[in-house]
């Protein structure tokens, strides 16, 4: 389940990346980047509850709906469908509507979001580069989770 956890985290990161980028065009004074898929804990919990012992890959699945994220265009919420340990679909369950700017996010950002998230199923990371981790901070780090998955 470590692997699923990690690539879901990566997926969340990609979603964040997309919306952070969108909001970042406002400059330093703007709102901070929005999280489109909710907290990583919530995303991880659901697909992690299944196991895949048969090899068919159908056992580890389900859908995860993220919390509502405030983007510069308004609230956005996405639902990720997981099947066989992979993201098979990403749908925007809530998008802003009503003006030209909203049509832009519906017509452009949502398909990009979907594409990015689907691509992210291969975004599993092997290691993390970050500002120097101290021994104290290591225990909670993503790197420690990656290490633990391969220590056996």
């Amino acid at each position, binding site marked *: 389940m470590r692997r699923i956890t990690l690539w879901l985290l990566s997926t969340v990161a990609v979603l964040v*990346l997309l919306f952070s980028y969108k909001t970042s065009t406002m400059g*330093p004074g703007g709102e*901070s980047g929005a999280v489109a898929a909710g907290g990583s804990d919530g995303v991880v919990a659901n697909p992690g509850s299944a196991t895949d012992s048969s090899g068919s890959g159908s056992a580890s699945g389900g859908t995860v709906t993220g919390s509502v994220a405030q983007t510069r265009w308004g609230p956005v919420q996405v639902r990720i469908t997981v099947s066989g340990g992979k993201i098979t679909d990403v749908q925007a369950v809530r998008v802003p509507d009503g003006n030209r700017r909203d049509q832009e996010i519906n017509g452009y950002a949502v398909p990009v979001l979907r594409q990015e998230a689907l691509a992210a199923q291969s975004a599993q990371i*092997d290691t993390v580069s*970050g*500002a120097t981790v101290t*021994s104290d901070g290591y225990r909670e780090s*993503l790197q*420690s989770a990656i290490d633990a998955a391969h220590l056996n």
Partner: protein
Amino acid sequence: MNLATEPDRRAWVMQVMGLPVSVHLRGPWVRTDPVAERVERVFAELGEVDAVFSTYRPESVLGRLGGALPDPATAEPVVREVVGLCELARIRTDGWFDARRLPLPGGGTGFDPSGLVKGWAVERAARHLADLPDHDLCLNAGGDVLLRTAPGRPAWRVGVEDPDHPERMLDVVERAGGAVATSGTARRGAHIVDPRAGRPAEAVRSVTVVGPELLWADVYATAAAARGADALDWLATLDGYAALLVDAAGRVRATPNWPGTWATHTCTA
């Protein structure tokens, strides 16, 4: 996820030089004693380097010097090598990496090569794993990463940590070899000193440098963090190195040759 097609992978982790150091190997012999012994040699050598260079240890060579520059005439060869590299680093970074007047753990200022020793030591210690054909190496020393892959193997995927959300990735870069190093104020506060002003540098939240050698990727990242606002322009001039920088306001920018996705995103804005 088809695990069967992936080569066997194994990790080792040790706290050494005051850092978590993890060694990941992919290849057919990762569960054999000879490979494990080589990994032990890597950790042992890092410990030996620490015993010589740690400024936190009063009994180390550097600790005994108490901030004085080692005398090239009497210093042991490894110390002489590091002193020479620190001088080269100062020149290559226009003085923004300067080991000569840094705040010391015991108070006061003086010579502290720690910012260079880590990258130098990791590259040096990794030679114990150099002659393992068909094996890939991913060595992470406190967030600075050295990579190698055998021909035909997939590249390592290195996540670049979001300084404001360490559990999230700012970007992912695929590297078959070389180094990824990050410096900044995210984990330890403003510990990088602006050598010109003599104050902690705070304009750069985080900077990640990708390139062929860990020692230089690390030095350039540290220098960029000290340099501040115009660091990205300077990083773009470095041959063979690319960078992603998060400034104090949270703005993310990359050099044109940055291998991750961020540059692409910026271009489509």
